[in-house]
C-alpha cells in the first residue's frame, strides 16, 4: 500500500500556512488493504432496485442485491440466486428456476421462492422502470420453497436473458415497509426503498449520503466466496479534473470514469494503472420524428422528412469525433447496437465519410435550403465527453444550415425529459445487458405502449414493426427469430431512427496494486477485485 501523503511535506505546508500542527494532524490515514475507495462521475439515482433502469444505479445495486442469474464477461449466463433454469418441459411458456438454498437476506430472513414471486410482482408493476424487460410475464408461482415458475404470455426462449438486472427483494421486508410498488422515479417520489436496502448481496449498506458517499461493508453471511475487498467507499466526483486529482493524490483507489484526455497522463504515473476495453454501450443521437410540431420549433418538424435525417447523417463526421473528442477511445459505427450483441450486422454498421455538399442538397430538397433552428438536449455527466460530442455535432450541423441550440443538462434532468417526451433532439447512450437486439427494440423502437417503448424519445411508431418486435418475445425458433431481428434492423436503418455515433471504450484507472478488469457493461463488481 502506498502512503498517499508524505508526512514531512505535510508538516512543511502546515508550518508555512501558519496553522497549528494540531489542527492538521500529521498525515492522512491510508486506506487499509481491504477498503476500496471507488470514485465515479455520478451517484446511483436511487437504491430502489426496480425504480431506475440505469447503468450506475444497477452497478451499485449489484453489490447489495442479487439477481437470479448473472452474466459473465463473455456474455454467457452464470448462476447466482438461481442454480438452474430451464423452459418447462411440458409448457414452453413457463420458465423454471431452481433456487440456491441457505441464502439469507441482510436482515436475516431466509431467501425463498416467495421472495422471487414478490419481486416479479413488484418489477412488473406500473411504476417499475424495468417493466419493459418483463412485458411477457403473465405471473409467477412458488412451486416449493426453492422452485419458481414464471409464466409468460407465450413461449419466450430468451426471457432469462432479461434477468441480469432483476434484483430480488425480501417479501416480508416489502410488506413490512409497504413498498409493494417501486418508487416512481419520474415523479420524484420518496419511498423507504430509496435509502434503505435489504438484499442478499455480498455487501451491506452501512451509510448513504446521496451525492456524497455511500459506504458498503462485507456481508459476512454471504453464500459465495469471500471477496478481497471488505469495505467499499463509493464517492461520486462530478468534476473530471477533481476526479483525476483525487486518484493522483491517492485519495481514491479506483476511478471508473477516466476522462479520455487523462488516460495518457495516468498511464505514465507511477503507482497507477489504466485498463481499457470495449463497453457494451452505443452513443447515438435521436429526434422526434413523429410529432407535427416541435417544442423548440413550433408548427414544424423537419425531422419528419427523410431527406433531413439523411442530411444529418451525412453531416456527422464520426472519425473526427473519435480522433479529437474521444482521443481514439471509441469505435464508430452506424448500427445502434454493440458488435457483441445478437443482431449486430457489420454491413449495417459500416459508415461513410461525411458529405456536406450532398447533405446541403438534401436539405434543399427537403425544403430547408436555409436550414432550421432546433434545441439539442444533451447530458453532461453521463457518457464519456457527452457534452463535447454534442458540441462537435452542433458545429457539423451548422455547416449544413441547421442551427442546433445546445441544452446541456445533468442526466437527472435529461433522462426524465426524454421519458416524458419533452425533447426534440437528443443524445442518449444505450447498453444491452441481454446481449440481444430485442432489448434495444423494446425500449427504443417499439411505440410507447404495452409496457414497451419507455425510452422511445423519437416517438417512432411503426405498427408493423411493433408486431415484429412483439413476436420476438415468444419466438422459439432462434433462426427465424434472428431473421426477424435482421428485418427490423433493416427498417430501422432505412427510416434512420437513430443517428449512431460510436461504441464507447471504457477506461478504468486504479492504483497498480489493484486488479480490476474493464467490464463490458461497465458494471464492475468489487467482488472480483484482487490485490497484488
Amino acid at each position, binding site marked *: 500500500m502506498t502512503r498517499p501523503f508524505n508526512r514531512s511535506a505535510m508538516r512543511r505546508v502546515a508550518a508555512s500556512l501558519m496553522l497549528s500542527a494540531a489542527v492538521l494532524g500529521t498525515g492522512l490515514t491510508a486506506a487499509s488493504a481491504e477498503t476500496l475507495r471507488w470514485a465515479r462521475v455520478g451517484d446511483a439515482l436511487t437504491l430502489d432496485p426496480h425504480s431506475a433502469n440505469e447503468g450506475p444505479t444497477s452497478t451499485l445495486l449489484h453489490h447489495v442485491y442479487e439477481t437470479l442469474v448473472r452474466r459473465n464477461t463473455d456474455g454467457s449466463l452464470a448462476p447466482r440466486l438461481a442454480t438452474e433454469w430451464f423452459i418447462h418441459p411440458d409448457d414452453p411458456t413457463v420458465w423454471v428456476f431452481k433456487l440456491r438454498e441457505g441464502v439469507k437476506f441482510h436482515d436475516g430472513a431466509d431467501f425463498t421462492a416467495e421472495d422471487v414471486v414478490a419481486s416479479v410482482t413488484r418489477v412488473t408493476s406500473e411504476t417499475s422502470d424495468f417493466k419493459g424487460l418483463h412485458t411477457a410475464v403473465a405471473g409467477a408461482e412458488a412451486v416449493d420453497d426453492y422452485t419458481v415458475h414464471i409464466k409468460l404470455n407465450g413461449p419466450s426462449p430468451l426471457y432469462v436473458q432479461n434477468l441480469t438486472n432483476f434484483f430480488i427483494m425480501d417479501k416480508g421486508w416489502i410488506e413490512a415497509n409497504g413498498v409493494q410498488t417501486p418508487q416512481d422515479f419520474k*415523479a*420524484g417520489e420518496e419511498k423507504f426503498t430509496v435509502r434503505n436496502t435489504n438484499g442478499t448481496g455480498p455487501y451491506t449498506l452501512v451509510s448513504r449520503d446521496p451525492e456524497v458517499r455511500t459506504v458498503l461493508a462485507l456481508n459476512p453471511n454471504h453464500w459465495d466466496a469471500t471477496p478481497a475487498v471488505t469495505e467499499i467507499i463509493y464517492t461520486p466526483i462530478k468534476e473530471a479534473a*477533481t476526479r483525476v486529482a483525487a486518484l493522483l493524490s491517492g485519495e481514491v483507489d479506483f476511478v471508473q470514469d477516466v476522462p479520455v484526455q487523462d488516460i495518457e497522463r495516468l498511464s505514465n504515473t507511477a503507482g497507477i494503472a489504466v485498463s481499457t476495453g470495449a463497453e457494451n454501450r452505443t452513443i447515438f443521437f435521436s429526434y422526434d420524428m413523429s410529432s407535427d410540431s416541435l417544442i423548440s420549433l413550433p408548427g414544424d418538424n423537419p425531422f419528419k422528412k427523410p431527406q433531413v435525417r439523411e442530411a444529418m447523417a451525412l453531416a456527422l463526421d464520426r472519425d473526427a469525433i473519435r480522433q479529437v473528442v474521444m482521443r481514439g477511445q471509441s469505435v464508430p459505427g452506424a448500427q445502434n447496437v454493440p458488435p457483441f450483441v445478437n443482431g449486430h450486422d457489420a454491413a449495417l454498421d459500416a459508415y461513410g465519410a461525411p458529405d456536406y455538399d450532398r447533405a446541403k442538397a438534401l436539405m434543399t430538397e427537403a425544403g430547408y435550403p436555409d436550414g432550421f433552428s432546433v434545441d439539442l438536449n444533451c447530458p453532461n455527466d453521463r457518457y464519456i465527453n457527452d457534452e463535447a460530442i454534442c458540441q462537435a455535432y452542433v458545429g457539423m450541423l451548422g455547416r449544413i444550415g441547421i442551427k442546433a441550440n445546445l441544452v446541456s443538462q445533468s442526466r437527472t434532468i435529461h433522462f426524465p425529459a426524454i421519458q416524458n417526451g419533452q425533447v426534440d433532439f437528443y443524445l442518449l447512450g444505450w447498453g444491452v445487458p441481454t446481449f440481444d437486439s430485442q432489448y434495444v427494440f423494446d425500449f427504443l423502437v417499439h411505440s410507447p405502449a404495452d409496457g414497451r417503448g419507455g425510452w422511445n424519445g423519437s416517438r417512432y411508431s411503426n405498427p408493423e414493426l411493433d408486431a415484429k418486435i412483439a413476436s420476438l418475445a415468444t419466438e422459439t425458433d432462434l433462426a427465424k427469430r434472428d431473421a426477424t431481428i435482421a428485418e427490423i434492423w433493416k427498417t430501422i436503418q432505412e427510416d434512420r431512427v437513430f443517428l449512431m455515433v460510436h461504441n464507447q471504450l471504457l477506461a478504468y484507472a486504479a492504483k497498480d496494486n489493484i486488479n480490476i478488469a474493464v467490464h463490458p457493461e461497465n458494471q464492475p463488481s468489487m467482488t472480483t477485485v484482487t490485490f497484488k
Partner: protein
Amino acid sequence: MIAYILRRIVQSVLVMLVVALVSFSLFRFVGDPVATMMGQEASQADREALRDRLGLNDPVIVQFAGFIARAAQGDFGISYRLQQPVMELILSRLPATLELALISGTLAFVLGVGFGVYTALNRRGLLSGAIMTVSLIGVSLPTFLIGILLIWIFAVELQWLPSFGRGETVDLGPWRTGLLTESGRASIVLPAITLGLYQMTLIMRLVRAEMLEVLRSDYIKFARARGLSDRAVHFGHALKNTLVPVITITGLQLGSIIAFAIITETVFQWPGVGALFINSVQFVDIPVMAAYLMLIALIFVVINLVVDLLYYAVDPRLRVDRTAAQH
C-alpha cells in the same frame, strides 16, 4: 435594553416573513409542481386530483399560512431531485458548511485584521505596498480559479493535501464532523484557504480603511497630544475603535461566507449545503432552493441579532440606530 432587543426581534421576524414570501412564491409560481411531478401522459383529472391534494386550489393566503406553519416546523417537502425530505438533507449537509465557514472565517478575520492594521500603520512601507497589491490580485482572482490553482499545486503536484471531500468524518450525535480525524483536518485546509482568501482581503481592506479613518480622528490626535506612546495610541485606542465597525461588518460577512461556500464546495466537492444548492438550481429543485434561502435568511437574522447585541455590549454609546453606524 429589553425594548431594544424586542424591537430587533420583531424586525427579524418581519425579515423572515418577507424571505418566506419569496420562498413561497418560488414554490407556488416557479415551475408548476404538478407538471414537475407528473409526466406528459397524466390525465387532466389526475392533475386536478394532485392539485387538490397539494392544496394548490386553496386561496393563496391560506397556502402561504400553511407554508409558514410547515416551514416553522422545518417541513419544506421532498427534494424533487434526491427524493428525500429537504430539511433532513439540509441538516445532514449543514455541519460540513458550518465547519468550513467557521474555520475560513476565523482565518480571514485573524489574518485580515493583522494585515489591515499593519498596512494602515505602515502606509508607505514596501511590504504594505506588496500586501495591498497581492490583496488586489486576490480580489481580482475568482474564487474558483484560486481553488483550482491550490488543488493543482498542493494536491496534484506536491501531494501534500487532499483535493476533494471532507476525508474521514465522525458522527457526534446529529453533527458529522471532519475535525476529529487527521484526514478530515487535512481536507479542510485547501477549501478553507480558498474560501477565506477573498474574505480576508475584504476584511483587510476594511480594517485598513477604518484604521486610517480612526487615525485621523480628533481623539487619536488628542491621545498623541497627551504624549501617549505609539503603542498605546495604535493598539489601545485606534484598534479598538477600528474593530467596532469591523466586527459588526465581519459578523455579517459570516453569512456571506456561508453563501460563498457554494463556489468552494463545488470546486472541492465539499459535501455542504452550498453544493446542494447549486445542484438544486441546475435542477430547479424548488423545495431545496426555497429551504436554502430560508436557512441563509435565518442565519443572517441570527447573526444580525448577535452582532447587534455585541455592538450594544462593545460600544458604550448605545447607538441604537445601527443603520447609521453601518457603512
